[in-house]
């Protein structure tokens, strides 16, 4: 800038204003307007989170859809769970979320409250989407205040995954209706005989604590609040910490360092609580055999389990609600899609897809058998509400549980912190 000339301030402002305006225009045009074109072809953005196998499978199903609906093009967007929700939040706040996206129970109320989710009931009424043939009442998982804001693609439940070889070697058995005492006794036997921990860290898992509370006539969430007291949680974490110190639960320092591998497949412990559709990962990661076992109970009967769901939701501001509904309809009802997806997102939610997919490998068979067993035992309850902010609370529960088991925070202080953070999360 060698020229030292005076420029009137107004000129600068004008130029700046003009360029700002043009850029602004460019930005607006960049965002919208690209979803439709002259020949009636419509483009929908479809986003999901998950590992590579899921992405490969979903892309196959998209190709199938585009073949059947040549006038609808699908633009896929995918990433891992945490990044997905960070990105989604930013996109949704800017009015530019994907037209269709994978969703979970914990996010329904949050984004319904913010007006992001399309009520798909209207599309069903218009005949673009069928709400029939959903198994075991899972369709209700996508309903909030009479609106259908999510369509389940699968059903899953919390389960106990065990290292089958370790359990056999220690001579312990997991059976339906066993109590927590029996469970921890079994872990003790494993620890004594095999010199490994029994569990990988149950007390930081919000969804397991939810089951425990449900066994005791409470639940983690009510419609708008937490469904337990600070004392309840203090007790839960005190017990957990005691078991970490005695070695019954794996050393959290070691668990942290084998990530992203699970501590169960890394051989640090003999069992882990997780969602049953995740159990497929263990065979790939670890060297032992893994199986699904019943959740321990308080009264010898109730496990507190329920069927949760991953679902598909749509953006309320989508320009093509009809096409979006057709897409979701295809993805949840088409038998071919069911064959391709398998139980990656849980047991297939509709009878068309469930009947079309016959699992051939041990893992998928195991998952199917497990849910059959649970269903037969008649212990499945109804899902409890997830108020807006549930996602933030789940993260806080995991973090604070970690502080407790690491011995860095006293259980009572951690429980207090959870309650104060929950208050802020519900308000947000």
């Amino acid at each position, binding site marked *: 800038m060698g020229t030292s000339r005076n*420029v009137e301030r107004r*000129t600068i402002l004008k130029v700046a204003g003009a360029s700002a305006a043009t*850029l602004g225009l460019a930005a607006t045009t960049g965002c919208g307007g690209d979803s439709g074109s002259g020949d009636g072809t419509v483009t929908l953005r479809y986003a999901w989170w998950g590992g590579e196998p899921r992405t490969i499978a979903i892309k196959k199903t998209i190709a199938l859809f585009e073949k059947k609906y040549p006038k609808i093009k699908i633009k896929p967007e995918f990433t891992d769970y945490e990044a997905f929700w960070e990105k989604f939040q930013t996109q949704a706040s800017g009015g530019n979320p994907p037209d269709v996206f994978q969703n979970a129970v914990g996010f329904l109320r949050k984004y319904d409250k913010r007006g992001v989710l399309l009520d798909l009931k209207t599309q069903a009424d218009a005949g673009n989407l069928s709400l029939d043939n959903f198994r075991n009442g899972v369709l209700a998982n996508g309903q909030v205040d009479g609106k259908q804001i999510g369509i389940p693609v699968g059903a899953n439940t919390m389960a106990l995954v065990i290292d089958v070889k370790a359990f056999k070697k220690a001579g312990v058995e997991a059976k339906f209706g066993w109590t927590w005492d029996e469970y921890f006794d079994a872990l003790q036997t494993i620890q004594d005989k095999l010199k490994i921990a029994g569990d990988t860290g149950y007390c930081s898992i919000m969804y397991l604590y939810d089951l425990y509370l449900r066994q005791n006539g409470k639940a983690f969430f009510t419609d708008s609040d937490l469904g337990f007291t600070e004392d309840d949680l203090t007790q839960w974490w005190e017990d957990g910490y005691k078991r970490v110190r005695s070695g019954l639960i794996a050393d959290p*320092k070691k668990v942290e*360092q084998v990530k992203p591998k699970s501590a169960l497949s890394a051989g640090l412990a003999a069992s882990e609580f997780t969602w049953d559709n995740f159990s497929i990962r263990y065979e790939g990661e670890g060297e032992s055999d893994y199986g699904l076992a019943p959740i321990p109970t308080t009264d010898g009967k109730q496990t507190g389990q329920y069927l949760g769901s991953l679902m598909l939701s749509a953006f309320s501001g989508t320009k093509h609600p009809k096409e979006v509904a057709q897409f979701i309809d295809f993805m949840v009802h088409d038998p071919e899609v069911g064959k391709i997806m398998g139980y990656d997102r849980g047991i297939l939610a509709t009878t068309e897809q469930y009947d079309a997919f016959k699992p051939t490998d041990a893992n998928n068979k195991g998952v199917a058998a497990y849910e059959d067993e649970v269903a037969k035992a008649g212990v499945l309850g109804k899902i409890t509400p997830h108020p807006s902010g549930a996602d933030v609370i789940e993260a806080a529960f995991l973090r604070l549980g970690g502080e407790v088991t690491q011995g860095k925070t006293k259980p009572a202080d951690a429980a207090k912190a959870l309650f104060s953070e929950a208050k802020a999360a519900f308000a947000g």
Partner: protein
Amino acid sequence: MTLVKEAPARPAKKRSAAPAAGRRGRRRENLAGYLFMSPWIAGFLLLTAGPMIASLYYAFTSYNLFTPPKWVGLDNFTTMFQDPRWQKSVEVTLKYVVVATPLKLLLALGVALLLAQKRRGQGLYRAAFYMPSLIGASVSVGFVWRALFSDDAIVDRSQKIFGLDVGGWIGNPDYVLYSLVALSIWQFGAPMVIFLAGLKQVPRELYEAAEVDGAGPLRRFWNITLPMISPVLFFNVLLESIHAFQVFGSAYVVSDTRCGPADATLVYTCYLYQKGFKEAQMGFASAMAWTLVIAVALVTAVLFWSQKKWVHYEEAAK
């Protein structure tokens, strides 16, 4: 930027005396100049100045990205100062700054002293030591670090030789921050290059005179080198501490995006990020950002004030 600086220096008289045609031509030229600058100006206004002003406003609001910001006055700041996690993040950050910065500079100075001497393959050494500074901030190095300092990985095994078995640093809340410190120290190349330049400026005759007077190497370093390079040292201290206050990438990657375990790597910016982008408390996050700006400005001011006591400028001494 020169434009702004030089404009007032021009005598006003000359300007009014200029013929109208010339003025118009000049104005057109200026307009062209600004048009060429406009991408930068637009970028500055839209991407830097605008967001900064917006975040200053958000700092006094409750804003969840979806509903319009609600004015709450100083609420964000009062909640923040009482928030145990915020306090923890300040503690972690201060610890990081206070430990990492001096160690990094010491190493940089030490290696610079060695490399300042003439020897064969000098250029190669300098390049080799500088290399980590180029790649150190990358995400992939963060992953490498995580692997190096995990349980039963190379650092852990080497420690075991000396009977220091801590079972890996990454999972241990008492040690994990030091793996970040190590990562920072490893990137000592940038301050080292600046030190080298400073060392080159020290007049040889000072050393010769001191040697004649019988001063040993330590004395020469203490009484000649250090005072002579103190402006460079000051510059490095300033730059590196400001840098350290803003550490984010390494903590985020090494801790597997959670800034844990048990919040042990919850550096200030990490908490800010969690509040803003995970919990969508943009008002709180903005308040945090501005508090950091003010804190860093204060530290800078203190450093500038302190330089009177220890920084030696040759011109001033004359």
